[in-house]
Every structure is written in structure tokens, then in C-alpha cells.
């Protein structure tokens, strides 16, 4: 599922620091993650889990440090699933999945298969505004399946999901790892079987950003 070349994929993070405004969220973060591994990010609200995921996704610039993906093809294609589901209220569920299929250059078969996999096959004609929070999250999950990409960055992927939905996410993550993919996820509560864990609170210094007169 994770595409060719994924098995040699390595993520290296060196001395990473993130700041929001004048506040340092974490610093001195170094880690190495190989293909097939999963990393759970833990820590209290505001400890920088989402920020770390956004840095890894290339959305936010780190305050200091280096993020390097190597061996996973050109630039290690990533999927970033934030806490917002990117669901449009006026488009039907199926239309949105098909849009992402076209966006990633896949055929609409991939969208239909993904909709079925996340349990939305019988909700395909419902517009986004008619979906429950859990169904919106399931719709967001279809992006992971429509375009197989080696790196998954998931921000609390099980938020709003029911028991069956959580089992689905665990299964998707297990399948992804089995095919050589890499998963980094912010989680509260139950994590994923056999994954490593990183507590961001342990990296928090609480000191103001150097050079700032806070």
C-alpha cells in the first residue's frame, strides 16, 4: 500500500525546537524512525504535538533543528490529517472522495474503494453538512487510502470516532506499517499496538525563546 521504495524510508529529526510566539513548545527533539515503525506523540494539550506534526508535514517552519526524510522516493510523499477534516458542506461525501482521487491523479475507483473501507459506502450521497463529526473524520481518512503515500502524519485520528471507528484506524495503521509505511500520530488514551511513544512534555523547558525579552 505504501508504494515502491518505501521500505528504505528513514525519518531523522535533529535537535528540533518549536515555538509559538514567544513560548517554546519543545526543544532538543531528536529521533529516528524507520519504515514500518509508528510513533505516538503524547503530552498534555498545548505541549506541541500538533505543531510537531505540522512541522513534519512541511506546513510550519521549525524554530530550530533539521527534519530529513531519506530513501522514500523523491521527497517522501506525506499525508497530513489535521484536526480539521477538510470536508466541504455542500459537496456530497462521494464527490469529495472523488475530488481527492482526481487531485492525487487516481481514478474514481480508488475513491469508491476507500469509501467502502471506512464504512461510508451507504452515505455517499449525503452532503458534507449532513455528516456527523465521526463520519466527517471517516471521510478525511479516505484520503489516506485513495493515494498510498509512505508517511502518515495523523493529529488525533480517532477523535470523534466510535469504538468501531477506532478499531478501523488501528487496522489501517497496522496495514500501512505492514506494507512498509511510517505513521506518526498524536494520541490520547489507547495507542497503536507495537508503536514507540514520545512524551513531548519531557522536552519542554518552559524557558522563553532565546533572544526574546519575555
Amino acid at each position, binding site marked *: 500500500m505504501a508504494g515502491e521504495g518505501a521500505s528504505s524510508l528513514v525519518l531523522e529529526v535533529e535537535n528540533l525546537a518549536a515555538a509559538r510566539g514567544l513560548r517554546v513548545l519543545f526543544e532538543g527533539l531528536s529521533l529516528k524512525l524507520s519504515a514500518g515503525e509508528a510513533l505516538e506523540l503524547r503530552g498534555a494539550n498545548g505541549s506541541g504535538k500538533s505543531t510537531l506534526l*505540522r512541522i513534519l*508535514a*512541511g*506546513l*510550519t*517552519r521549525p524554530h530550530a533543528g533539521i527534519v530529513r526524510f531519506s530513501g522514500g522516493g523523491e*521527497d517522501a*510523499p*506525506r*499525508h*497530513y490529517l*489535521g*484536526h*480539521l*477534516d*477538510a*470536508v*466541504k458542506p*455542500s*459537496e456530497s461525501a462521494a464527490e469529495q472522495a472523488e*475530488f481527492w482521487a*482526481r*487531485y*492525487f*491523479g487516481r481514478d474514481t475507483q480508488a475513491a469508491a474503494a476507500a469509501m467502502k473501507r471506512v464504512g461510508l459506502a451507504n452515505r455517499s450521497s449525503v452532503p458534507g453538512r449532513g455528516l456527523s463529526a465521526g463520519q466527517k473524520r471517516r471521510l478525511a481518512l479516505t*484520503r489516506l487510502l485513495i*493515494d498510498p*503515500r509512505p508517511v502518515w*502524519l495523523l493529529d488525533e485520528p480517532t477523535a470523534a470516532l466510535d469504538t468501531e471507528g477506532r478499531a478501523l484506524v488501528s487496522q489501517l495503521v497496522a496495514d500501512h506499517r505492514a506494507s512498509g509505511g511510517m505513521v506518526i500520530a498524536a494520541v490520547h488514551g489507547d495507542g497503536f499496538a507495537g508503536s514507540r511513544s514520545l512524551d513531548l512534555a519531557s522536552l519542554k523547558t518552559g524557558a522563553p525563546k532565546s533572544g526574546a525579552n519575555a
Partner: protein
Amino acid sequence: MSGSFSVFARELKLAWSGGGGAALPVGFFAASASMTPFAVGSETVALQTAGPGVMWIALALSSLLPMERLFQADLEDGTLDAYAGSGIGMEGIALAKTLAHWIATGIPLAVVAPVLWIMLQGPVEATGLVVLASLIGTLAFFFFGSIGAALAAGMRRGGLLIALVTLPLYVPTMIFGAAALAAAADGADWVGPLLLTVSAALFGVATSPFGAAMALRTAID
């Protein structure tokens, strides 16, 4: 490339299906131009003098109206994160979205422009030019506007910022466009001013996706 094109197609569909995205700007445009005779008086000479200028002011302000929502909805619902997180360039996204909104709103503005032109006592022979100039003008307005739209996307009530940033960029297009229509109304040569309007539009189309992309990357940072 499939990414930008699919975004373009989606935006076009959303703009039409989402409750008539063009209705407000077109209504605003029609209302402001059709109220002019009440304000400046209905004498033909007065209307013919004011007509081209009024048309272009109304066109510029109407083009500004849809700008506030151009990127805001995508930023708020996480779509912009999903686009950026999948490694497709923001420039392509900005270009696709702006072009789609110009087709959905700018073209309807150009279509109603001749009606207002006649209402302002403009010569009937010039209606073809009015449509052409309005198409070019709205293209410039939408693309220059996309820079302001991207800058204000992350702000609550960013409309004022959009107006402040964008209106100075509208000025050259407005001068050349109004000059072309005034020349046509006088029976003078309008090709020169029209070509200058085209060059302003081309400059906007070529440069603004880069400016908008920079602002959007900051907005999601």
C-alpha cells in the same frame, strides 16, 4: 498538474452550486450603475461623461466583494492544510482558485456590463468593447485581489485589509480601462488604452499567484 486542475474544476462547481456566488457582486454592480442617473441627473451629456468612470468604479468594487471568501473557507475547514500537506504547490492552488472564481463571477459581471452601459447613455456601437474591456478588467481585479484575499484569509473581518491592499493595485487597470471606454464613447482610438488594460491584467495573472501563495503559506504556518 492534476492537482491544480482538479482544484479548478472543484472551485468552479462549488461557486455555482454554493447558492449563486455571482449573485451578490452582479447585483451590486447593477445597482450602483443603475442608481447613477438618479445621482448625476439624467441628461445625456452628464451621463455620457460620467458613464465610463462609474462603470469602472462599480466593476472594481464589485470584484472586491467575493475576495473575502476566496481563501477563507478553505483555511477554516482545513482544506488548505490538506492541499499544502500533500506537497502540491500553493501557487497552482491560488491560480486555480482565482481563475475559477473569475469565470464564475467575473464573466457574469462582464455579461451584464452592456446593459448598464446603455443605461448610462453609452453609444450602442461600443457594447462589444464594453464586454471585452470588462472581461479584461475583472481578470485583473480578481488576480490582484487574490493577493489581498490571501493576506486577509487568516483574519476575522479581513475585508478592510483586502480593500486597503488591493485598491491601489486596481488603479492602473481602472485608469486604462476607463480611458478605453471614454475614447470609444467619443469615437476616438480606444486600442491603445485597451492594450494597456490587457498588459495590467497579464501582469496581475503572471505575478499574483506567487504573492498569494506566499501569503497563504504564512497563513497556515
